[in-house]
């Protein structure tokens, strides 16, 4: 009995859920049945994932006569994939609790539910793939299923655009991944991932580098590394909330999984430079992601850019782990791998939570625009508390889980001096500094992201009319509990992850990570130490003291409630509060070289010959740098090439017959030679 056996059950349940959804999803009982099956599958997957962390790698299994795309179906549950499978399971359970209350059963619901469950199944297959063909087929199935998920409401033109960006970049990435796998497979003459890893020494150095770079770029498209990220802010706002949550929570992590797979298992390159390139790409993504997040008013676009930022952090950790391994600092390498995997789990939990809450807000108020919201903490109290837990996590504030994993990453990066090479140490410090900037901007961004919609006064009537009845609470609440559990149970989680790191890298950290007494040390006993448990207890106690002082000493007389102090202005309107864009204006001014804003101001008095005052029209646009300067030239080049080639397809039958003749002649000549 090994984790893979449980996963068969989960896969079967998801398949059944897909069928049930397709057949009966348009009626409420069918919807519930489908979600129930999905939740069961998710729970099984979570259990299997958690178990495989400590179990180690299962052997490769080719179940029965099943073939897939002409090759054998090969499955293997590795310890490395265990984290991702556990995350997939938890997210699936949360989504299954969320979907019945969020979606109204209608005509398109059946196909949507089938696509969701198919995507979950495909993700599981990617993670449990033991062979190249299985991996690639599952990957492409996942992409197509996600495309269907994004297209839930296809009537709006924006949806089509967002889904198209997703699909196009997905396919380009897939092409690069196929190329990477083909190089490896051709050089090692194997299709099983284990065999490819074992025969890795057969691949010459140049090909190894090429394969790794192709994999980094290919998986980077899915993970959202800058400049390959442009599909994220386009696809997330138009997908339904649970679809966006799934995309950000799980699918983007599969890109990170691919990078780790290639970097640590399949094609570990000897020199430090692949690690430095990865680390640099990660650090740049983190900084650019959060900077663009601060320029967004749409909650989901904002969260999408935050996903790019966190992917950057994860990939930085993995890149630094590669660099340390190249310099034979194996303990630090394993430590950073653990830190990166921990951040994967954390981000999966709180980002999914935040997207689900964004869906609740959109459902309750009808808008995703932060500048139209406000005061939701009184109208959606439970959702506000849950969103607050998620915000604390993603802003990496103690004592929650984001703080633990970012602390680990920073402690690993700060030990860059142990590599012995000055240049590398400086580059690692630069990456740490970039992550520090990112951390600060992330706190700023999420104060804005939570404060503007939830706190203050409602800026519009829709925000004031929001009600909590009928909104999904159980799904996000489960994820909030998971966030707290990941924080408080950090020693347990780290113990399991260090077993995983031993399986992947061969280095056993043991007392170098957890020397006992609930403390965590960063792979070296003389550097620093930190106890998540004691920190949590201390912070809770420290926050309790002012509360107790207040309760003991508050005045007996009743308090008077007076309106908000508005400077004495006679006609105060809630629109006069801080808006999302003014809150982030200092950042936009400081970093205007990146944003290149174009501002247009039109005053009614400009046109009036008498100079009478009137409405002022102010418009500020952030230049889409990547679309304009990277993608548009590439698209134009492809279109030009297509124009050049078009004469080949003239439609003239005689020309086609000439082609046939030429090809036969060529084949004959080649055969003769």
């Amino acid at each position, binding site marked *: 009995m090994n984790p893979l056996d449980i996963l068969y059950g989960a896969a079967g349940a998801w398949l059944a859920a897909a069928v049930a959804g397709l057949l009966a999803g348009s009626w409420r009982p069918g919807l519930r049945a489908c979600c129930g099956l999905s939740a069961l599958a998710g729970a099984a997957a979570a259990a299997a994932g958690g178990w495989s962390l400590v179990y180690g790698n299962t052997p490769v299994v080719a179940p029965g006569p099943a073939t897939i795309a002409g090759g054998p179906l090969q499955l293997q549950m590795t310890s490395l994939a265990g984290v991702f499978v556990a995350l997939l399971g938890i997210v699936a359970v949360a989504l299954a609790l969320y979907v019945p209350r969020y979606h109204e059963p209608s005509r398109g619901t059946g196909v949507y539910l089938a696509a969701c469950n198919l995507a979950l199944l495909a993700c599981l297959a990617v993670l449990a793939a033991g062979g190249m063909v299985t991996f690639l087929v599952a990957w492409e199935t996942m992409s197509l299923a996600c495309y269907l998920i994004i297209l839930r409401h296809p009537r709006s033109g924006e949806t089509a655009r967002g889904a198209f960006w997703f699909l196009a970049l997905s396919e380009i990435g897939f092409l690069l991944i196929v190329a990477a796998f083909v190089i490896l497979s051709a050089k090692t003459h194997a299709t099983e991932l284990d065999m490819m890893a074992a025969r890795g020494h057969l691949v010459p150095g140049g090909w190894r580098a090429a394969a790794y770079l192709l994999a980094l770029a290919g998986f980077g498209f899915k993970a959202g590394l800058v400049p390959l990220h442009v599909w994220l802010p386009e696809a997330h706002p138009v997908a339904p909330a649970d679809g966006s949550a799934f995309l950000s929570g799980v699918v983007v992590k599969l890109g990170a999984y691919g990078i780790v797979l290639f970097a640590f298992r399949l094609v570990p390159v000897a020199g430090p430079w692949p690690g430095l390139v990865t680390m640099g790409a990660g650090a740049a993504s983190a900084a650019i992601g959060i900077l663009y997040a601060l320029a967004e008013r749409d909650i989901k676009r904002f969260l999408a850019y935050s996903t790019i930022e966190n992917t950057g952090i994860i990939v930085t950790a993995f890149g630094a782990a590669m660099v340390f391994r190249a310099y034979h600092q194996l303990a630090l390498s394993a430590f950073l791998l653990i830190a990166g995997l921990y951040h994967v789990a954390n981000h999966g939990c709180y980002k999914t939570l935040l997207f689900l809450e964004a869906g609740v807000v959109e459902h309750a108020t009808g808008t995703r625009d932060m500048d139209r919201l406000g005061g939701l903490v009184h109208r959606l109290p439970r959702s506000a508390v849950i969103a607050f837990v998620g915000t604390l996590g993603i802003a990496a504030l103690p004592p929650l889980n984001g703080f633990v994993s970012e602390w680990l990453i920073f402690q690993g990066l700060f030990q860059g001096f142990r590599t012995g090479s000055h240049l590398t140490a400086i580059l690692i410090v630069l990456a740490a500094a970039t992550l520090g900037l990112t951390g600060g901007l992330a706190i700023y961004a999420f104060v804005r992201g939570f404060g503007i919609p939830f706190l203050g006064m409602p800026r519009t009537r829709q925000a004031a009319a929001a009600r909590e009845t009928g909104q999904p609470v159980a799904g996000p609440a489960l994820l909030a509990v998971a966030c707290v559990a990941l924080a408080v149970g950090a020693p347990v989680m780290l113990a399991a992850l260090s077993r995983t790191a031993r399986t992947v890298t061969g280095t056993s950290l043991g007392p170098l990570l957890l020397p006992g007494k609930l403390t965590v040390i960063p792979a070296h006993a003389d550097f620093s130490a930190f106890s998540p448990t004691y920190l949590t207890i201390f912070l809770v106690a420290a926050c309790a003291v002012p509360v107790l002082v207040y309760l003991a000493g508050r005045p007996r007389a009743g308090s008077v409630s007076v*309106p908000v102090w508005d400077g*004495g202005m006679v006609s105060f309107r809630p629109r006069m509060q801080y808006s999302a864009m003014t809150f982030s204006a200092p950042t936009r001014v400081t970093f205007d070289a990146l944003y290149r804003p174009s501002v247009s101001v039109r005053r009614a008095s400009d046109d009036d010959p008498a100079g009478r005052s009137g409405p002022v029209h102010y418009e500020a646009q952030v230049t889409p740098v990547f679309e304009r300067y990277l993608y548009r030239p590439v698209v134009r080049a492809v279109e030009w090439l297509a124009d050049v080639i078009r004469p080949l397809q003239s439609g003239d039958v005689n020309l086609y017959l000439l082609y046939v003749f030429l090809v036969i002649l060529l084949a004959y000549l080649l055969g003769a030679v």
Partner: protein
Amino acid sequence: MNPGRDEAEAARRLRDTISTQFGRSLHIRTLDTGSCAVCEQEIRLLTAPHYDLHRLGFFFTPAPRHADLLLVTGPMIRAFDVAARKTYEAMPGPKVVVATGACALGGVYPKDPFVHGNAGEVLPVDVWIPGCPPSPLALLHGLGVAVGRLAEMTPGLTFIADSAAGGGEA
């Protein structure tokens, strides 16, 4: 039950509270209800080195939420009514209102469609400080009276100079 005595008792307790809480630490919020700004100049002089308000533990604050005492100048133009009431209501209790300057005391401007003429028409004034403008010394005395640190002299003054030399009377 003697309502007069209970009222006097409550008033005494309030004065004691104000004296204890504000006697050595007071936050003042100025409110200009349409003055010519000369009273504001004198008020501003209070923080200058010669008079140094801070040595007495008194400070200025712009936020009524943090203020204990509201210092009103100006003849209370009617357009300012809402803002004046909002400022007063935004201050948490206990609070003291001091009107200063001949305008706020009802001397200079008569009541007309634009002006109340007297700060007491809109706000419950506790201490009145005359002067045009009141010198910083008069303001210091008035603030001291407001927090119970100094005694008021005016009830004892008659402004009758019948003794041989000039000068005031007491």
